[in-house]
């Protein structure tokens, strides 16, 4: 599928957001997906041309990140978290049920049925930073919290039937192509949809309110004199097997 001139212009526009244009590549590939439904050879060529890098280099990037798809995905891309916590909490069973229900394997698009108004693709995904809502399912990268196999099936059935489905912490679901356009940095005006936070996010705050627990008043005083104030001491205090940059002992 060739890249239309409006898309091409928008790809150029993305590259211009950054001090060095190659920085635009990740959002540019999101835009290619939004326009073409997947990363295409033509999209790779257009990015390479705009950024003045080789197509092999663009391919290297496009195949590194898992959100870039080299096969067409559905109108709604369903991701079931099967990282340990969600898997244990039911993600594995949800994923199995959806595979069976949609008759697809991982990262595949279900065959459309007569009368369907949308297609569904299914993928098992890694931790999506919503563990307090486990088991979690993402549809076009919107949260669907606290799922069960039954709720998951009903979500995909509703989507296929063209019924509106809302994210538990966001707007009515948009299509995958529309979502990819937001990831490319083009605002869709839906930021004000949905709640501030889901219920689990607020449990702690509610308990604090009930107990009148607050942060100290501004005049509270303490000192951090025991916190390292030299580089070497900081290196020793920090977790040495993480965040290597701070912890490598420099020879200087």
């Amino acid at each position, binding site marked *: 599928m060739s890249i239309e001139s409006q898309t091409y212009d928008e790809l150029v526009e993305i590259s211009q957001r950054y001090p060095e244009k190659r920085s635009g590549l990740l959002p540019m590939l999101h835009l290619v997906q939004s326009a073409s439904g997947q990363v295409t050879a033509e999209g790779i060529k257009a990015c390479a041309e705009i950024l003045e890098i080789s197509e*092999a280099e663009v*391919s*290297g990037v496009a*195949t590194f990140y898992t959100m870039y798809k080299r096969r067409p995905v559905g109108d709604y891309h369903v991701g079931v978290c099967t990282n340990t916590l969600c898997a244990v909490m039911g993600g594995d069973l949800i994923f199995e049920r959806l595979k069976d229900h949609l008759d697809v394997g991982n990262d595949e698009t279900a065959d459309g049925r007569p009368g369907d108004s949308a297609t569904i693709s299914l993928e098992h995904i890694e931790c999506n930073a919503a563990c307090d809502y486990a088991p979690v399912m993402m549809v076009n990268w919107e949260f669907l919290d606290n799922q069960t196999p039954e709720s998951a099936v009903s979500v995909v059935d509703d989507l296929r039937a063209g019924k509106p489905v809302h994210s538990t912490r966001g707007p009515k679901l948009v299509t995958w192509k529309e979502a990819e356009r937001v990831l490319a940095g083009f605002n869709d005006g839906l930021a004000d949809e949905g709640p501030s936070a889901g219920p689990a996010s607020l449990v702690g705050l509610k308990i604090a309110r009930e107990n009148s627990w607050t942060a100290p008043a501004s005049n509270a005083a303490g000192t951090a004199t025991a916190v390292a104030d030299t580089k070497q001491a900081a290196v020793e205090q920090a977790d040495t097997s993480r965040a290597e940059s701070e912890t*490598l002992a420099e*020879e200087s």
Partner: protein
Amino acid sequence: MTAELVKTNQVTVTIDGIQVSVPADTLVIRAAEEIGVQIPRFCDHPLLAPAGACRQCLVDIPDAGNGRGFPKPQASCTLPVAEGMVVNTQATSPVADKAQQGVMEFLLINHPLDCPVCDKGGECPLQNQAMSNGQGESRFAESGGVKRVFPKPINLAPQVLLDRERCIVCQRCTRFADEIAGDPFIALVERGAQQQIGIAEGVEFLSYFSGNTIQICPVGALTSAAYRFRSRPFDLVSSASIADHDACGSAIRVDHRRGKVMRRMAGDDRDVNEEWITDKDRFAFVSTRLDDRLTHPQVRDTETGELRAASWPEAFAVAARGLAAAKKKVGLLPGGRLTAEDAYAWSKFARVTVRTNNIDFRARPLGADHGAEEAAFLASTVVLGAPGAGAVTYADLETASAVLLAGLEPEDEAGTIFLRLRKANRATGARVFAISAVGTRGLAKVDGTLLPTVPGAEAAALAAVASNSDVALDSHSVILVGERLAVVPGALAAAVELARSTGARLAWVPRRAGDRGAVETGCLPTLLPGGRPVADAMARVDLAEAWGVDAVTGKDGLSGSQILDALRDGDLNALVVGGVDPADVLPSGGVDKKLRKALKKAFVISLEVRSSEFTELADVVFPVAPASDKAGTFINWEGRVRSFPKVLDHPSSLPDVRVLAGIAEERGRSIGVRTPEQAWAEIVKVGPWSGERAGFEAPASAAAPQPAAGQLVLASWKQLLDDGRGQDGDEHLRASVRPPVALVSAGTLTSLGLTAGDEVELAGPLGRLRLPVAVGEVAEGVVWAPASAPGASVRHQVGPAGSAVTLVGGTK
């Protein structure tokens, strides 16, 4: 450098208990080599930026030089030494040894261990280091591990194949492509355990230097289509040699078996090509074993008029008789591919046996002045220059403040220079400028700046550089002029003047391996061996004495194009020719009927490796030995002497020197040498001319020709990979030729009403050719097209560079 400076730049470290002082910034892995400790490694390569990817070279650093150790083993390929550092390698540290064993085990779990059928087996760093630093048994296999597999090998390029399951993703190949060649058409793709080397869909790894990736691959993942499954390293005999496809003098290694070259590899010569060669130097070696290789002398039968096989003595005799009959009306065109020894034999044969100065090695267009300006330039400015004697060297390119190119596209015409310029630009930001009609990809890869110049206007462009503050040449700058400037009146003179006025140093870069040697040995009408000017009576006397002959003629000689003109006009009766295509010499670019008739009539002696157009015109044909079949010397563009031994023994052909000696002796005017060794000894004995050098009178520079309305000026040169006969026989290499296009500026394209991608007709003095048109950085009013693309020979079908041409589209 003062002793104190040296001292402060040295760092003392203790490796395995042994103190060693090395320059600051030395990597630990190389400091260890200084004391004879080989730390195993895969991703590390001394000419590539450190990657630290394979983790094979882990060592223990109990003291980083600041009294503190590293808590975990460090990659010695990325860690610079520090004063007082203590390093314990696998030789003394159980921690380092265990770390290395562990990495080796990981590398092998997914490796197919197919060494018995792998081309790399026997010369494989993985195999070797697994033996020296690995374990005998595989815990992975014992524990029922399942290896990663990939479907069949894939072509990264026509001549480069990748077996993915053997790859250990050390990234040497991708780093080479990106850093050294500037052709990042291979890249890491996918991720994690699936990570592999790949190309973009439908976009191959088309690089003039792709073969180097095969050589530096530390496993058998990359193989060449030509060598794959052909041989085993332990069956091969290796001979050091010198590349014969350009004037760079690159060191190569020729691997052969039972009289047949199996492959050519880059040699390691830090002064010249470091560890890299072009694909042409690597893969173009099979042409000499094609069916058209000449295997015995032939003479034209007086009865039948046909060539027939002859014995060597008969052929010598027939040749000698023919020359005697021609008196001195003989021309000699030895060509540019000779060794210095053979070129010396031709030069001496012309002067002693034929007694003429009608000799010219230049097998290329020489311009309206028949090459006179260039010959004068070579005699005054180029000959006798050498490294150590003031000549520009590769090292000078690397440290130059700026390099100006004129009439030279290094990536196409001198690949090793291109690599060195790229290295300089990346290391120091050295600026490169090109006086050319086209901003090539090669120029872009050295971050170069085009000084757009219409072909023919190079003299004026060179003159203008003197006052160009952006270029700002100084005594640390270098001007490289190519042989293509010969056709532009006043251009070489302008280059000489520019060098004089700015203090920049000047060097001449020809295209062929034998060109410079031919200059040094006097294969020019105006120049005798050792830089002796023909016009200088003292020099002639000096040479006659050295040769033991009565006199050396001072009569004006004819240049290459003049020789052909004289033949055409019947002013010469005989021609001795060494594999030169007359179409390449004539200013018009084509062989006309009259010349063909004249050549048929003239007495022609041809010294050739393979039969050619000249074979059919010749009266005597001598099969001569290619570079692989004789010892010899190439003198590269620097003036550096690059000697090489005989690699193969093919008694069916002889070096030119032996052939010419045979004819000369039969003629009764011996050239005194019969072998390359004798010839070299005599070159040394005759020595360089110590008298006054020929001067260089700047000729009047003619105005650049102006094309008529509706016409464009043709810019054109031979690309590295083209229809050259030396590349015959390797279809994989030929498949990697850049597809020919007609290249114009966006403005020119619009003014012609064309669209990029259109097929257009390029018409010039010799005819017309259809090519797709493309847009590039091209001077206005100019169209560029490759001179010698296979099947689209602009030089033969359209015309030589500088021709007025038209570009017409519309008929798809």
